[in-house]
């Protein structure tokens, strides 16, 4: 058990810190949440800057420890997180890197790393949420293309994406998990209609996507036909890995700001408030240690983040909600004013126990895959 960073790791940290100290203050102001083209431009420009500085591939190539240092330092410097690059950098990219052909890696990975192209994720459907394998959007082979018809929902970044990692059913007769195929769909193909959906926080974060005989070249299939479920599992295990590390650092900073507010407005004198914030301090410290634990464990099992990610996500998503609830207690009636800090974040944090596998689904995963309890429904 060694928590000290090596000299090489510390050197990496200080070089990165120096670079961030120059790069972050040069950033333009953040665009408003509803201005998607501006958000895309902002997020891709940041990815380009990282790429030019040699940090573009940190999510893929760096050792898990360097990635952790990267996430810690960028968050500390107030740099943007992946934003609209999320799917490309953390879902589709790693999947293509692991499962794609050399030509596919050549075609898609560079543009993601340089911030030239944005991806979205078309997995969920109106009737296939937690039960993703029941998805029905169908793809029928026609020469050198699949003809895709159906609908997707909750597709984040759909409005500005160039590509969509799409799950389709290619064999309706096969057992559910065996008839699914993973396609990269060009978002400018004819037949795609994107309809933004407004979230409870007021902004349009995701969209519905209607697909009407969209032609996707067979060359855009990653993995074999009908092998998409296995390919998908590769993607999902990435999502549940270190993806949230930067956010834990951010939560620790927010907690300190909430404590400062509590001291300023006098609620700190209430032991119940103080102790609630104190417990959160221990909570986020432990979550950071758990990430380090998972990162070290990943080094033994071939660096693919394992089921430990489910344990982390379960606890983290609830801790984050508790953080903003505690902030609301500190703010009192001001927590009803949307222009106050943390109020919008409190609303947004409600998605954490739903997106990327609900808490109930995570508990099923922990119970069945880690604890070995019987599978059930």
């Amino acid at each position, binding site marked *: 058990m060694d928590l000290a960073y090596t000299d090489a790791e510390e050197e990496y940290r200080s070089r990165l810190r120096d670079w961030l100290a120059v790069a972050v203050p040069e950033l333009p102001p953040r665009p408003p949440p509803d201005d998607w083209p501006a958000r895309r431009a902002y997020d891709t420009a940041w990815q380009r800057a990282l790429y030019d500085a040699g940090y573009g591939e940190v999510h893929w190539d760096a050792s898990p420890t360097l990635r952790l240092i990267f996430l810690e330092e960028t968050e500390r410097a107030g740099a943007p997180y992946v934003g609209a690059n999320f799917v490309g950098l953390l879902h589709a990219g790693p999947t293509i890197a692991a499962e794609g052909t050399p030509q596919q890696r050549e075609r898609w990975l560079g543009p993601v790393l340089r911030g030239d192209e944005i991806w979205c994720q078309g997995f969920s459907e109106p009737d296939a949420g937690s039960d993703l394998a029941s998805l029905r959007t169908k793809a029928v082979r026609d020469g050198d293309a699949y003809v895709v018809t159906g609908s997707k929902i909750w597709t984040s970044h759909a409005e500005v994406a160039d590509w969509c990692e799409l799950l389709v059913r290619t064999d309706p007769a096969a057992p559910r998990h065996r008839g699914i195929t993973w396609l990269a769909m060009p978002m400018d193909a004819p037949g795609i209609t994107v309809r933004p959906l407004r979230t409870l926080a007021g902004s349009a974060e995701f969209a519905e996507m209607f697909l009407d005989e969209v032609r996707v070249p067979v060359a855009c299939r990653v993995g074999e036909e009908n092998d998409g479920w296995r390919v998908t599992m590769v993607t999902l295990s990435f999502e549940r890995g270190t993806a949230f590390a930067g956010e834990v650092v951010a939560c620790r900073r927010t907690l300190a700001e909430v404590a*400062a507010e509590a001291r300023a407005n006098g609620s700190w004198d209430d032991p119940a408030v103080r*102790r609630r914030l*104190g417990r959160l*301090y*221990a909570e986020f410290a*432990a979550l950071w240690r758990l990430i380090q*634990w998972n990162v070290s464990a990943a080094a033994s099992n071939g660096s693919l983040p394992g089921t430990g990610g489910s344990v982390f996500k379960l606890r983290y998503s609830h801790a984050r909600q508790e953080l903003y609830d505690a902030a609301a207690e500190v703010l009192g009636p001001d927590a009803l004013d949307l222009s106050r800090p943390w109020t919008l974040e409190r609303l947004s944090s409600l998605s954490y126990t739903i997106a990327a596998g609900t808490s109930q689904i995570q*508990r099923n995963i922990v119970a069945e895959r880690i604890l070995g*309890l019987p599978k059930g429904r």
Partner: protein
Amino acid sequence: MDFRLTDDQRALRSGVRRLLTRRFGREALRAAVDREGRLDRDLWRELGRAGLFALRLPESDGGAGLGLPEAALVFEEAGRALLPGPLVATQLAAGSVPGAADGTAVVTCAGQLSSLVAHLVDADVLVTIGAGAPHVVAAGEAAAVRSLDPLTPLHRLPHPPPAASGPLLGAAVLLTAAEQLGSAARSTEDAVRHAGDRVQFGQPVGGFQAVKHLCAEMLVRTEVARAAVRAAAVTGDLTEIAGAKLLADDAAVRGARDCLQVFGGMGFTWEADVHLHLKRSLLRAQMWLTTVQAEEIQAQALASAL
């Protein structure tokens, strides 16, 4: 950074587990309950010979020269096995109170549990912990208390002793948290095993989501506590140690309660071991550092982080 256990640490842990399985299995545990927590002095000496108390003493003083991380692994195993006795106090006294290191003396501590003292009946030496080495004190007219935990006899001192403090307190809190962690892990395992074996409505009860999710939450609390306890053992940082105790107390107490729920009526019996983990963890949660104190320490750290 490599948070994983080293091969030596793994070997240490499995060595201790083997020793405790052999010398303090279920029968010995129930015999200890029947003795109302009175200690088996042969076992105590054997623990001493195995190095449980001298672990952190330098090799020149007859110790193993190991650190807090190793001690935490050993105490995790003690917690799993519900090993009784003032293990933490005796380890703190090793090197300064004669006989503590090799298990010939039983040392307990006043001031770790307000005016209550654990295992005074079997203790050869009573100490307090403050600045410097543990300080030997007289018990005076201590009155026996009916202890909640059948494995821990308690006495009440006539005058409340000074609360434990000083440089040794961090290790005391951390090792107690490690015991809690071991207990939490054990409760999780027991609940999962029972849920897989017990059949109702034609299926193992572990197939019911309500039960499954209880078990999943037990594991989550245990794993979060594990990361916290092990990291705190490595850094030795007092705030981090206090935070680890908070999380480990929670994992142990709630874990034992959830385990009780999973066991159903059997969980409410004297016969099952579930209550032993619950009662012991309730006691440890009060020891050395209470929830309120630990939360206030976190709040202070937060305030000074601004």
